[in-house]
């Protein structure tokens, strides 16, 4: 099961979807083809925006850091933030905005508590590089890494409800000790 498979499984058929940082629009395209879920992507990068248009996906070229003012309250069933949380400066504000705009949110991120990353810091003494986090420290677009435990704490602080949680490593679900053994974390949350 890939991360995208998990997200597609969590989206209800026909749901109105907003995908923040949608990349080339592949997820939105799948959601339309498999779930008849009409969606919009938000993306800032020119090359990604072009890919979205080629993929026949509705895309809005906007900066997430400017907030979600373009979207009305509760105008979407599901707002997705896939592999983008760590690249955002104001995560708290964005999570609140996502749950203003959508009834639910799906968030996925690379778990910085994954044991391989811990080992790289603990014993290699270097910032970790992995399939999920392929960038060297000086060129990474990521500004705010977190672990599964950190994210749980933020969700609790914001008073949000976790509807479902999932940790994945190498395409397989991790049930025990997810903060140690999970490379990628996914959450379905609501206000």
């Amino acid at each position, binding site marked *: 099961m890939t991360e995208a498979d998990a997200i597609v499984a969590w989206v209800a058929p026909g749901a109105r979807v907003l995908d923040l940082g949608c990349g080339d629009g592949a997820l939105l395209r799948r959601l339309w083809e498999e779930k008849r879920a009409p969606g919009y992507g938000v993306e800032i990068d020119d090359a990604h*925006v072009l890919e979205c*248009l080629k993929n*026949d996906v509705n895309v*809005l070229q906007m900066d997430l850091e400017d907030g979600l003012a*373009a979207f009305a309250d509760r105008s979407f069933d599901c707002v997705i933030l896939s592999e983008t949380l760590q690249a955002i400066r104001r995560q708290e504000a964005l999570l609140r905005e996502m749950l203003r705009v959508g009834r639910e949110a799906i968030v996925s991120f690379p778990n910085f508590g994954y044991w391989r990353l811990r080992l790289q810091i603990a014993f290699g003494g270097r910032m970790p590089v992995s399939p999920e986090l392929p960038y060297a420290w000086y060129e990474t677009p990521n500004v705010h890494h977190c672990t599964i435990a950190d994210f749980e704490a933020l969700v609790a602080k914001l008073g949000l409800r976790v509807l479902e949680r999932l940790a994945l490593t190498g395409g397989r679900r991790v049930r025990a000790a997810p903060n140690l053994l999970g490379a990628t974390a996914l959450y379905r949350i609501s206000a």
Partner: protein
Amino acid sequence: MNAPRLPGSVGIVEAKKATFDEPLRLKSGAVLPAYEIAYETYGRLNGARSNAVLVCHALNASHHVAGFYADDPDNVGWWDNMVGPGKPVDTERFFVVGSNYLGSCFGSTGPASINPATGRPWGADFPLVTVEDWVAAQARLADRLGIERFAAVIGGSLGAMQALQWALAFPERVRHAIVIAGTPRLSAQNIAFNEVARQAILSDPDFHGGHYYDKGVVPRRGLRIARMIGHITYLSDDAMMEKFGRQLRRAAPGFDFDIDFEVESYLRYQGEKFSRYFDANTYLRITKALDYFDPAADFGGDLARAFARARADFLVVSFKSDWRFPPARSREIVKALLDARRIVSYLEIDAPQGHDAFLLDDARYHAALAAYFRNIVL
């Protein structure tokens, strides 16, 4: 026909005219008893009549969108980089119509045309036509051409207003509305610039209250200044600085009022050129059409409510350095479309040239439009 097949060019084209005898009631309440619309077409209308694209032009352009004339090969259409075989609006696939708005001085009936009631040019008596009126007249042209529904209506600047108006006035006749460097309404500053341009014309002694045709003169001073003002708003500060800087035209400042700086020379040249081909009565009316356009006005200022009746898919495009109709204006359109739950994509192109960028050949802009048009199902 021995048309030279330039790569990417539609080649030799011909301007046509359609005559309409049914009176057209205008938004102002005035009635145009009969009129002509100048237009050009490129490509072929397919059997299902599903591949027609209407190109709406901006202030000083015309129905001559692409290609060139046999007897005037240097007169290349104003959007030749966008429309043609293999271009973003691909004439191998689409049947493209360029239509000249009512009140123009390039072929459609306008103030310089003969008023059938008097046998003399309309002049000041030509009614004020609005964006709504233009679109109503274009719809009759579409009927004449056998086009029930356009695959797309596309325009930049004032042309963008027409694309919006098409989607609002004829929701069932537009499948895609492509709104480039547009605005849902002019700002006070936009209207202010237009008013200065109008005053330049109206105060020219050669204007004669708009009846200058009879007098054998043209209010060229007014037109020159109007165009100079317009040109300032079409370019970004950076683009102007890059193009001209503080470059002097002469060895040293002259301490007089002849041309010192390159930018003065450029504006004077543009103003002079414009005053030789553009009609002052047309300029006055078009700036008013711009000022009046406000589709949200009938809905308590709520643009989203105005869009509730639209059925088209929208593509909205803005340019970051455009300060005439800046991205914030396009984002208003996008927000209203989202609030009305319409389908929309939005591009904000980081081009440096200002408002004029919509006419220029920017790779990101053209690639995006090409991708969008390729996905229009025929």
